[in-house]
């Protein structure tokens, strides 16, 4: 049962990515006559229209196209010219490659920020008076629990136009700022949003880890004359190391799926991610058709990407498990 729900769509995605379903068209001569003063004038046109079946449905034809859909997504010729010309702009003009670039940079860049912020908050909460801990945890959970699209929108509303924070920045830097005019500021806001959104999760996990730090080891370290920093570096952080690995894995998976930010910041004209690319193919275009074949191809490529990305940390975990 579960295999049906899980394996079936994956197989069908693979299958779809090698096939294209198209309506079959026929060419017919259509004579249109316009009544005029001197008898009617007739024009014979060659029109293309989809063949209808007896039930009035459009007959479609599914053909095997091999890697054509992949080629449509990857656009190797354009890539080749871009590399030949060493032109970064041409490279990022191809949607797939610019999506890949953004997704990878986003994933890698936010990871240390999230881990660092989470750890700092956890240490600070651990350090504060017990009465305050409950309310602080409550407030910290808010960004994590809020609907991602809404969270991104909330940040967008703070910055859009002369939003409150943009106005503040302008006043501070004495310079006119438009946060939504260029790609890099939008990207910057996405990083900020992601750290804001995910740091609470890292915090909660680290905080739970801090509760189980062996107090005897800490005492021993103090007796040995370890400074505060050394205690953190050599006792607490090694203790939290498994959690760091866990959070890294989860974060790689989640950040690689980056999608809601694109919706919330309406950035599809400037910055897109891999998942957005698939989404865009799946949406109906002007004629009501969906590019399912291309969507599948990009979905398969996305899957390969996450497999490669996770292979490195997973192999390390595997080796450590075997070693111990």
């Amino acid at each position, binding site marked *: 049962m579960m295999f049906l729900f899980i394996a079936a769509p994956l197989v069908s995605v693979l299958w779809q990515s090698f096939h294209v379903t198209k309506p079959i068209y026929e060419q017919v001569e259509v004579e249109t006559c316009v009544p005029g003063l001197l008898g009617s004038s007739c024009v014979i046109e060659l029109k293309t229209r989809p063949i209808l079946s007896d039930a009035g449905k459009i007959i479609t034809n599914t053909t095997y196209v091999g890697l054509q859909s992949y080629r449509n997504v990857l656009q190797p010729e354009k890539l080749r010219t871009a590399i030949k010309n060493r032109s970064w702009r041409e490279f990022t003009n191809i949607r797939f490659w610019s999506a890949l670039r953004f997704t990878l940079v986003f994933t890698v860049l936010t990871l240390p920020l999230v881990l660092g912020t989470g750890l700092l908050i956890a240490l600070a909460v651990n350090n504060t008076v017990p009465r305050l801990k409950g309310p602080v945890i409550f407030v910290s959970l808010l960004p994590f*629990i809020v609907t991602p699209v809404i969270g991104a929108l*909330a940040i967008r509303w703070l910055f859009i136009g002369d939003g409150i924070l943009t106005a503040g920045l302008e006043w501070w830097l004495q310079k006119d700022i438009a946060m939504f005019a260029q790609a890099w500021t939008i990207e910057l806001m996405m990083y900020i949003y992601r750290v804001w959104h995910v740091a609470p999760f890292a915090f909660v996990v680290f905080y739970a880890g801090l509760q189980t730090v062996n107090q005897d080891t800490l005492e021993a370290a103090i007796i040995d004359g370890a400074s505060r920093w050394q205690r953190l570096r050599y006792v607490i952080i090694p203790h939290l190391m498994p959690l760091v690995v866990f959070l890294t894995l989860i974060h790689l998976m989640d950040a690689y799926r980056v999608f809601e930010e694109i*919706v919330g910041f309406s950035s599809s004209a400037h910055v897109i991610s891999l998942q957005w690319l698939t989404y865009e193919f799946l949406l109906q275009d002007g004629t009501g058709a969906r590019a399912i074949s291309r969507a599948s191809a990009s979905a398969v490529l996305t899957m390969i990407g996450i497999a490669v990305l996770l292979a490195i940390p997973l192999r390390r975990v595997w080796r450590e498990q075997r070693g111990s």
Partner: protein
Amino acid sequence: MSGPAHRQPLSLKALSNGFLVFWCLVAAFPIFWITVMSFKTPIDAFDSNPLRVIMGPRTQTDVGGLSLLDIVLALALTYVLIRFALKWLPGKVRSFVPAGQMGLGWLIGCGTFGLVTLILFVVVLPGVLGVLNPVAGPLGVDVLGLTTEHYEAVWIDRGFMRNFTNSLIVTCGVVSVSLTVGTLAGYGLARSDSLIAFWLLILALVFRALPHSVLVAGYLPYFISSSEWLAPILGEAAPTLYGKPWAVIAVLVAINQPFTIWMLRSFFQNIPQELDEAARVDGCSHFQAFRLVIVPVMWPGVITTGLFSFLLAYNDFLVTSLLLDAQNMTMVPAIANMFNRETTASDEVQAIAAAVSITAPLFILVMVFQRQIVSGLTAGAVKG
């Protein structure tokens, strides 16, 4: 952390607490700010002076606002109600309701409480204040601009109510289906130690990693053409699944199920096996043992798992926006459409009001279930 060796210098303490205050500000500010904005007229909401956004002078002159007396009374009432809910309500529910129907009792208790709160704030408070404000002198003069027109516009004119119902259908469907399957499968797996558990964990991980768009790309063509391939089974009445909430529920459950089963399994493992063995010795059938012995003690785990299913279904944008048609739209994609279409500043404030409406249930959720959420988050880390 006690004892002289742990004593920290004042500077470090100040630094850590200062950082904490800073973090809390950063964490809460965006949400707080959009809440404030949603109550103002567009000119005030998008003013570049923060003080004007909070006080809302234009809103006050155009629509009206709250006097000092209003604010004090409303705050006092809120405080009393919260005290009441925390101190008095649980005891009352416990004393009135027979032990067997605790869930129903809580439902009724909370429902009544919500209703009373609503009546107090919408009917009683404005009535009392309408009499008091004119006689209160300077205390009764409006100082804080406030308007609920955007909420009215969103919920009544724009039919946000329908989106809300759709969200309700989808989330309830996802939570109930995945919990039913999850409890049974999790219980079964917890009582049979086989290799399945390991593979389940791997599967849950794979699903965590899989971008949701991949799954949707797999499902979408079949949902669109479902009336054709379901016709041999269901005959003429075969539905087109595309656009219906059922399709979304199916996909979201598929995404969520491995995680749910795995979490519930690890929870059931903490219930000692002696418990159901004792029930079997006393003559219960296998199913009776589950129903009479396990069900009463399983609620904490089920609630935690259910919370995460709820969050997944409630927060989802990708699956719902691709698989639902306009009539069955849930709240989150609906609001995205709303601001893509926006033309005037007033539309934008309405979108903000809608966003706040979506966030409010989550806010309450964190308030009530904070402990379960934290324990659920950490459980994955500790066991994984």
